[in-house]
């Protein structure tokens, strides 16, 4: 296959960027999208041009490092698929593909396709945990957890923190990401003691980081490689409402 690709090139955070057109020949349908970018980079280096910077690591769809807008869709729009798991067989010979970084105020571009997603870590640091210090745990089977709750909690816990939800959202909202952690912990008995302070603190941090509000569009869930459901946002809102009515503030 021959592919034409328009890639966002941006030297650094302060530089202005632009789309640059490249031609990649000898693309095999069995290649992953990132392997196609590898080939492009090998070509560029051989021509003494700087390769395209992009984040990637496990290439198994679980670390959450990779993620770019492909033809305007986060991770390329294939259901439940990260960029590294998208394969060239879903494109046609002669296709022209546009590749851009995540676009969100809270995710500033570092270089080319690489963005800073540190705001996600800040949200987790503000309450995305159960305060169970090492050594204090009772026997694991001392608290049975209904299988349906454990399974639902797992569904939420699968979030890989890639940022596709933010990139896909017209408001650049981080509600799906935040709600996944709120739901994961809130569905478990161990998560109850900190449930109210958790939601208040995490939402406050999320707002302060510059993410937009949620207007129930649903692009986030459609773009999510782990298919995290929109209903988790409902859970977050319910927790937030009850914590607020209970008179909680965003400080413990």
């Amino acid at each position, binding site marked *: 296959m021959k592919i034409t690709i328009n890639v966002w090139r941006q030297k650094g955070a302060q530089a202005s960027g632009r789309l640059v057109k490249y031609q990649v020949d000898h693309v*095999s349908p*069995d290649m992953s999208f990132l392997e196609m970018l590898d080939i492009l980079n090998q070509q560029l280096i051989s021509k003494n041009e700087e390769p395209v910077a992009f984040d990637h690591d*496990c*290439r198994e769809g679980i670390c959450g*490092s990779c993620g770019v807008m492909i033809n305007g869709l986060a991770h390329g729009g294939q259901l439940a698929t990260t960029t590294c*798991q998208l394969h060239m067989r879903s494109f046609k010979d002669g296709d022209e593909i546009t590749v851009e970084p995540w676009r969100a105020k809270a995710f500033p571009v570092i270089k080319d396709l690489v963005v800073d997603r540190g705001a996600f*870590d800040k949200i987790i640091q503000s309450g995305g945990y159960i305060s*169970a210090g090492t050594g204090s*745990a009772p026997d694991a089977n001392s608290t049975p957890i209904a299988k349906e709750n454990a399974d639902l909690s797992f569904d939420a816990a699968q979030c890989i923190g890639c940022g596709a939800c933010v990139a896909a959202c017209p408001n650049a909202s981080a509600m799906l990401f935040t709600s996944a952690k709120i739901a994961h912990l809130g569905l478990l008995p161990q998560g109850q003691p900190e449930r109210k302070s958790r939601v208040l603190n995490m939402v406050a941090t999320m707002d302060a980081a510059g993410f937009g509000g949620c207007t129930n569009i649903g692009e986030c869930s459609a773009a999510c490689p782990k298919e995290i459901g929109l209903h988790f946002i409902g859970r977050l809102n319910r927790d937030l409402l009850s914590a607020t009515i209970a008179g909680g503030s965003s400080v413990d």
Partner: protein
Amino acid sequence: MTTETKPQVETRKPVEYTDARLNANAPAGPLEQKWSKHKFEMKLVNPANRRKHTIIVVGTGLAGGAAAATLGEQGYNVKAFCYQDSARRAHSIAAQGGINAAKNYRNDGDSVQRLFYDTIKGGDFRAREANVYRLAELSVNIIDQCVSQGVPFAREYSGYLDNRSFGGAQVSRTFYARGQTGQQLLLGAYSALSRQVAAGTVQLNERTEMLDIIIIDGRARGIVTRDMVTGEIESHLGDAVILATGGYSNVYYLSTNAMGCNVTAAWRAHKRGAFFANPCYTQIHPTCIPVSGDHQSKLTLMSESLRNDGRVWVPKEKGDARSPDKVPEEERDYFLERRYPSYGNLAPRDIASRAAKMVCDAGQGVGPGGLGVYLDFSAAMKRLGENTVRARYGNLFDMYERITGENPYKVPMRIYPAVHYTMGGLWVDYNLMSTIPGMFVGGEANFSDHGANRLGASALMQGLADGYFVLPSTIGNYVATGGYSQVDSSHPAVAEAVNAVKDRIQKFLTINGTRTVDSFHRELGNIMWEYCGMSRTEEGLKKALTLLPALREKFWSDVRVLGSGNELNQELEKAGRVADFIELGELMVRDALERGESCGGHFREESQTEEGEALRNDDEYCYVAAWEHFGDPSQAVLHREQLQFESIKLATRSYK
């Protein structure tokens, strides 16, 4: 070398090795009391004084993340580092199948003693008894700790935890979270770490790569790092350094490791005096998706848990090109069930991989190039129904289909062995301290617990045992024992290490050669896979020893690294890693050549039984090979730690 079975009567006297520098420091006394005795005897640091001590932790996977979080909880001043953009992305996240623990929730005869024995036997009797026993002991605490953090393990309808079986065990002791156990455990450690970051006890440095270690008065006192966004070279000093930087499978270029996994931190420490142990012990995992072409950048594992219900087979006939559904039952060779009837498809990884290689070498392999075997779920789907199979392995089946474009519910998966894990690593004593005082090593980066082969679901167990329980105790003892003075960045050793790092970066950027870093990495991978892969010979290893120094020389004269050092420069990062991998490769080959026996993942063709099983030689090789660096890998000197087995008897490792 002979290929005959070992004679029954021993005439030779076993060789005993002792090396004063390799004192394991395992406490005396009965095995089951060693750890509690040691914990009592270790010195403690008063809680109010802990914040005055800085502990540097490199790597935020299961071992590093858990250690940093726990040391932070205890009140130490922790500085943690990772090369990824977030601590949550360390490669532990990709572990699929599960984590072992001797909970005996199944009431099927499990115990600490049995987990200990299975692990020692699984490692082909090449691990240190005391360390492995402690690992089995701590396994039960790990599960408790993770559940209390909110790790959503699989449960039964009763609400109690579920278990599955894994290779090399006849009990069901593996806890799991669908096919994403590593992810859930790592996110647990990451959440504990995040809590400490918020509490101010842990200072987390992401996108920061460790490029050297600072030794002052013979002790590890700090590290030199590069900020991967700005390129700034910095030094960080402290009381002790923990390396939890993972394994070195990427020396083979193609492996199941993440693209960024590298040996640089461990290799830099080795070059500064840390002994590197058993580098030739590598694990080739039997169930990976086969290579599809030259463009391949990495390989993807299909969890070993699939072998609970999947049956491995090839056509009996050589070169049988029929589609799998056209091959009648009696014309199939279920070679694992045939050769290892009591463990069947759950034979340990090294054994299952070699068996797959043997049938493929014999021309029975399937798929492109004949480098594949079937992993077939049709019997399980008939027995359990497609829905049950989907519930157990749904995400793995989906991943297989995304990568190959084939639907495994309809056609059998094709799998082939791939490099997955490295049992070798920096030598550590019972306290997980390396030969450099003050430098501790945890998780896959050390060598200590898996011997010559790691059993499935044991890596997560070891990483978390080291991180949550062992290192936080032994670090406290080291700090409390003291004997070292305060240092600051004006010490000449700091400037020396910083300048060495800067010079090396400058060198990469000014070679201006013709070849890309990747092209060298691929060439290295081909040499290692060909001559130091699943099967090794004296001849092949000697050949590799001529190819690798030549490759090293070519690399340093002809690599092309564009851009500058003062910005995000992924080629520069790779260049440093590949340069270290080339040197490590040479040491691996030397180690493989020196170890003239077959054991676990190290298979020397000269040392096998008539049936083609690994033939161990306990008389000559019952030791840990620990290499000391001098100049370059060809000058490295071998030291031996004799393995002493007090509670178990060395036996032939059989899964028949």
